[in-house]
């Protein structure tokens, strides 16, 4: 089916199977591979995008549902070659190892700081609780989010 999407401020038209997820459309139709597949059931955060201001699992969202939202992906957070304060803070805190979960973490952190610019550490933990990291950078990621909030 034909679907019109608004992603990172631009219009995209795709022709995809009826049940296609936003994740598959991003990755396989639009070549926006910064959003990662992790579990397919919204439990790991690797595929998070910002939909109408909230961090949402793109693996659970159909492309059709997404067509009614303003979508932002990790590729669209910063302008040109720059970094957002959240991205800068993740770099400065070295809050990554393999980096596969980082896109989703940056998305969750961005959505959190947009609705709550000065969160407590407890709020950071709760807001990122669905973002799983196997390499174990949780402590660094918490510091990164609080650092970005200080900016």
């Amino acid at each position: 089916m034909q679907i019109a999407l608004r992603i990172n401020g631009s219009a995209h038209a795709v022709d995809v199977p009826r049940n296609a997820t936003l994740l598959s459309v991003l990755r396989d139709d639009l070549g926006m591979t910064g959003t990662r597949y992790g579990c397919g059931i919204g439990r790991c955060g690797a595929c998070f995008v910002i939909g109408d201001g909230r961090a949402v699992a793109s693996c659970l969202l159909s492309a059709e549902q997404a067509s009614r939202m303003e979508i932002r992906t990790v590729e669209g957070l910063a302008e040109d070659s720059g970094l957002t304060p959240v991205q800068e803070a993740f770099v400065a805190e070295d809050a990554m190892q393999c980096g596969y979960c980082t896109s989703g973490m940056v998305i969750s952190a961005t959505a959190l700081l947009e609705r709550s610019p000065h969160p407590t550490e407890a709020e950071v933990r709760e807001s990122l609780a669905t973002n799983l990291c196997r390499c174990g950078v949780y402590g660094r990621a918490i510091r990164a989010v609080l650092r970005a909030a200080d900016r």
Partner: protein
Amino acid sequence: MTDLLEDRIAISTDGSVTALSGKVEFGQGIRTGFAQIVADELDVALERVTVLMGDTDRVPHDFGTFGSHSTQQEAPILRRAAAFGRGQLLARAATRLGVTVDRLDTKDGHVVSGTTRIPYGELVATEPLSGAVPDEVAFLPEQRRRYVGRPLPRVEARDIVTGRATYAADVRLAGMLHGAIVRPPVRGAKVKSVDDATARAMPGVVAIVRDGDLVGVVAERADQARAAADAVDVDWLAGRPDEGPDADIPLREDPVIETALAGAATRRTAQYVLPSIANAPIGPGAAVADVTAEGATIYGATHRPFGLREGVAKRLGLSEETVHFAPRMSSGTYGRSSSIDVALEAAVLSKRAKRPVNLQWTREEEFAYSPSRPEVTLEVSGGLDANGDIVAWSFDEHTANLHTAGWFDPDPERAGGTQGRNAIPPYRIPHLNVVLHMEPTPLRTANFRSLAAAENVFAIESFVDELAHAAGQDPVAFRLRHLDDARLRATIEAVAARSGWGRTPLARHGLGIACTIYHGTPVTQVAEVEVSDDGVVRLVAVWAVVDPGFVINPEGVRNQVEGGIQQSASWTMFEELRHHDGRIAATSWDTYPIATFRDAPERIDVLVAGDASQPSTGVGEPGAVPTAAAIANAVFAACGARVRELPMRPERVRAAMAAG
């Protein structure tokens, strides 16, 4: 083997530098460390250095990235190569200027002499650097280092936070299709028959592939491939029986161990049990294969680029030289990707479909079919003399082979370094007997972060704690009086001071200590826990002191050790890969929970106290090794419960409270 400069360092005419290594980066930060070393010894800006790793068409042969050996093995070679290259640049400039080399120096990618500055690129325009790297080369003096020893963010960091980093599943090739595999109910089942009538008619399906016991689908889209694979009806013949060697291998023998134990003033015996656990990377295994009649290119992630090349060539009937492995970012591997399973499957699908095929396993497949850490049981008996000194120690490790590594060497020396790793305690013990029992397993297993060291050290350091208490001694003092290694002792003393060892903790809190020397890196940790009346353990804090010798990137070391502690805490508190009759019960993060942001301790304090006079040793694995015992010992200190079986579920803690 002589290292050739041209195999290690290439300088382009624009002055950019490429350093080559057969090791692979999967988040441990070695690309950054290698870049720091090369930039310093070549005297160029770090931004000018690219480290090309694991690409089998470009890099020198390497056995694999294992055992926290990369920095130890590669750093000295790259450093010598870079220094040798700088020497050649100086010599070329001297010839060109008609002066002696001692009149010249280097500065930021240039050879300089007074106001004359020659860019490196000009000096390699007619002839690239080459030659056998000598054992002895002149290094730049320490005070001229700009990068080594400094805390620097990872060179991949910007690509990672912007989503530009390319993992295997992100590779996009012209004409690329997507694959999906039809899995048997149990590992190793044989195909009896395949009914693919329904699947064949489904949208997007390009090919249904059967190759021996591998059944898969290739389709235009990943979701179409998966849907069609689910619609293929395979009649499977039951799975494979338990596999692996059945052997008892003495690692240390003491003919009078029984007498020594019987004669001890105090004797203790304990059994420790660890479950199988999953690698559980956040990104399931993935590979893209582009197979033609002439050869194959595989994009993926593995610990063994050359092993992968060999395996794929064999499977496809190609000669090794025609297979190219092009590494992409690893979506998390803690040993899992020593198996080349996904690459082999993608290669078979691509060969049949005659198109490039992208295959990423599902989360369910990753849990149920990727290799795991085997179950381990450790039996320990120890005896103390009347002074409270350990006189005898008998240790039996029961574990299983790591199938996908493909090797098992029963030689005690070799086995002690692999499946029996760190089974020998670091303590001074007059009568020591250690036996490794290899037992068949129903699981598909592979190398897992630290091999058996994390399991052995859980038992050893828990038991040493038990002996300390039996002797009525402080666990720190008890360890120190049995240890000779000065560097390990220093980490124990330092971590005791940082953690405030000996202080009175809050109610229900306790502190526990554990230490080890892993492949030359001493590391000691103190854990603080809080234990509720109903047995719920909360990890409050961990302090660690690590001595990896000469430190290249202190921030990289801290990150690795913190991550090792966090991952190991997750194993210890939550993880168990349940299975029954060869069938894995975990299929999702719901049935295999790992630590989340909520579970992360309030602090992980890592002091990098590297002895700069010592060679650099690894840090990727050592941090994960002592954590379980430090937590278990802290639980004992908090509530008197000695938990000897992991994970540390509340019912186990409650039972141990009742027993204690």
